[in-house]
């Protein structure tokens, strides 16, 4: 049986002043999948990744990556992982080709193999034409692609991508998603991806863990997590002459009101889904409550986050910012 790609038990990282950035995280990530680690800024995602990639020593708990203990045998872990951190750590004065060759040297590849791997990866991420340009002249998307290529030089079995699309334009973002999917499908590389974008986790990951305040608040397949939330959410925004309380008064007949679901209105989980929506509209009409907008939304990962923490994920429903 294959060892899990990542296995942590009660992982803790406490910084000076008693600040617990990661507070007892237990995870099992099976080999061969795409794992999404979702959470708002400051939730503990990057700190967890830094511990799993041997950059930061845990202050409590255990962590095994690719079958090796990050504290007892960090070099064995380093040989098996690829790392692309949040701020693409690339030297702006070097060219893409030079950086790829240096990365090969760092991983102990023979010189000829360093050269061959560099050419292969430049072609794979579409940077052949820019290979001899200084990285400082690359666009944000090109830097991310190079960063991804650098993390693949030694053909890792587990690839850590820390917020890989933050700051990218939508086209570059989709291109990177495609490359991640291809890498997983064709090479069987396990991907451990952190993100604060719901759409990214939903699109890419076959399993998601949501972290908040250093603790895991939900863990499972995105579809299963959303199914646990239950019924679609009907939100109604109050129109002229009516108030959110008027709306809530009518919708309460269909189920418990979901607090904070829409500004200037009210929301309710509709057991009947779209077929019950007509009943709700009729009830609002009968009560003479005017409304401005009505929306029926399937449960999202933000709903999962809302259910677990009582608040929305930062940036939920927003497009990732353009570069």
């Amino acid at each position, binding site marked *: 049986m294959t060892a899990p790609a990542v296995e942590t038990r009660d992982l803790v990282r406490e910084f000076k002043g008693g600040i617990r950035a990661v507070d007892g995280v237990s995870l099992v990530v099976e080999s061969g999948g795409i794992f999404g680690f979702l959470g708002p800024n400051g939730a503990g995602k990057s700190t967890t990744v830094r511990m799993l*990639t*041997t*950059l*930061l*020593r845990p202050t409590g708990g255990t962590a095994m990556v690719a079958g090796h203990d990050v504290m007892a045998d*960090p*070099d064995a872990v*380093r*040989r098996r*992982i690829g*790392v692309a*951190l949040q*701020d*693409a*750590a*690339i*030297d702006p*004065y*070097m060219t893409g080709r*030079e950086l790829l060759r*240096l*990365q090969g*040297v*760092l*991983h*102990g590849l023979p010189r000829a193999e360093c050269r061959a791997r560099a050419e292969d990866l430049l072609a794979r991420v579409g940077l052949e034409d820019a290979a001899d340009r*200084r990285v400082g002249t690359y666009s944000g998307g090109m830097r991310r692609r190079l960063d991804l290529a*650098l993390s693949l030089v030694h053909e890792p079995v587990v690839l850590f991508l820390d917020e890989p699309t933050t700051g990218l334009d939508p086209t570059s973002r989709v291109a990177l998603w495609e490359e991640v999917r291809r890498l997983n499908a064709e090479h069987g590389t396990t991907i451990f991806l952190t993100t604060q974008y719901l759409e990214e986790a939903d699109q890419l990951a076959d399993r998601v863990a949501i972290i908040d305040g250093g603790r895991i608040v939900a863990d499972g397949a995105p579809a299963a997590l959303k199914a646990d939330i239950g019924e679609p959410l009907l939100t109604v925004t109050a129109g002229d002459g009516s108030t959110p309380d008027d709306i809530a008064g009518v919708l309460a007949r269909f189920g418990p009101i979901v607090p904070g679901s829409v500004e200037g209105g009210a929301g309710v989980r509709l057991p009947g889904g779209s077929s019950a929506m007509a009943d709700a509209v009729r009830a609002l009409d009968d009560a003479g409550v005017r409304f401005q907008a009505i929306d029926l939304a399937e449960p999202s990962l933000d709903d999962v986050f809302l259910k677990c923490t009582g608040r929305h994920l930062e940036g939920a429903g927003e497009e990732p910012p353009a570069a």
Partner: protein
Amino acid sequence: MRVVSVSLGLAGRNLLLVRRVPSVFIPSLVMPLFILIATAGAFHGIGALPQFAGESYLAFTIPMAATMGAGFAGINSGMTVARDLEGGFFDRLQSSPAPRLALVFGPSLAAQARSVLTTVVVFIAGIIGGVMLPGVASTLLIFVFALMFAAAASFWAIGVALRSRTVQAAPIMQLAVFLSVFLSVAYVPLDAMHGWLGVVARYNPVTYILNAQRSAELTGTVIWSQTWPGLVAAVGLLLVLGAFALAPLRHLENR
């Protein structure tokens, strides 16, 4: 063997900056020249003191300028490490299975290579000023001491960088190297120094490095009695500062 190959790879990357960002390297090339010209120009009169025995003051100053140039080369490597730590490039090195020793030895090798260049430039300036090369063995000895001082200075600067993790620590890197040279026999021989400065210079290892270089420069021969104290001082500096640079490697993951 991996320590060697990775160190060479990292040194090569460090030296690329010399070509691609001349503004970083040029000051460390110009400063020793400036020190050589300014010192020899301003103080050439003291060459008439009996302690100089009629030697050219420019020739007397050449080893000091070469040593200072080597010190600048070392500081430069420390600043590169600090920039890598601040900018995140060091995370790439740290998350790879590269031998930890290479993370110090690589930049240090680059400093030693740069010190060769600064020493060549100092010698050329000397030749222009009328001071010929002192002979093959003596010239090589001056280069060897410059290399060792560059390595020692780089260990100091890298040790500071690994502890502070910021380029803002550059003044600390520079101050120690400046003081170590200026509080030695940089300007006059030991027997012409009095008071506290003389005491400090007597216990300063750089004094013995400069004395060894000067004996080679001024006599044109390698005099063992003058050379071995310099070698002991240089090796001592390398051991102490090497330990200073390598110690933080064991705690990199604790931050």
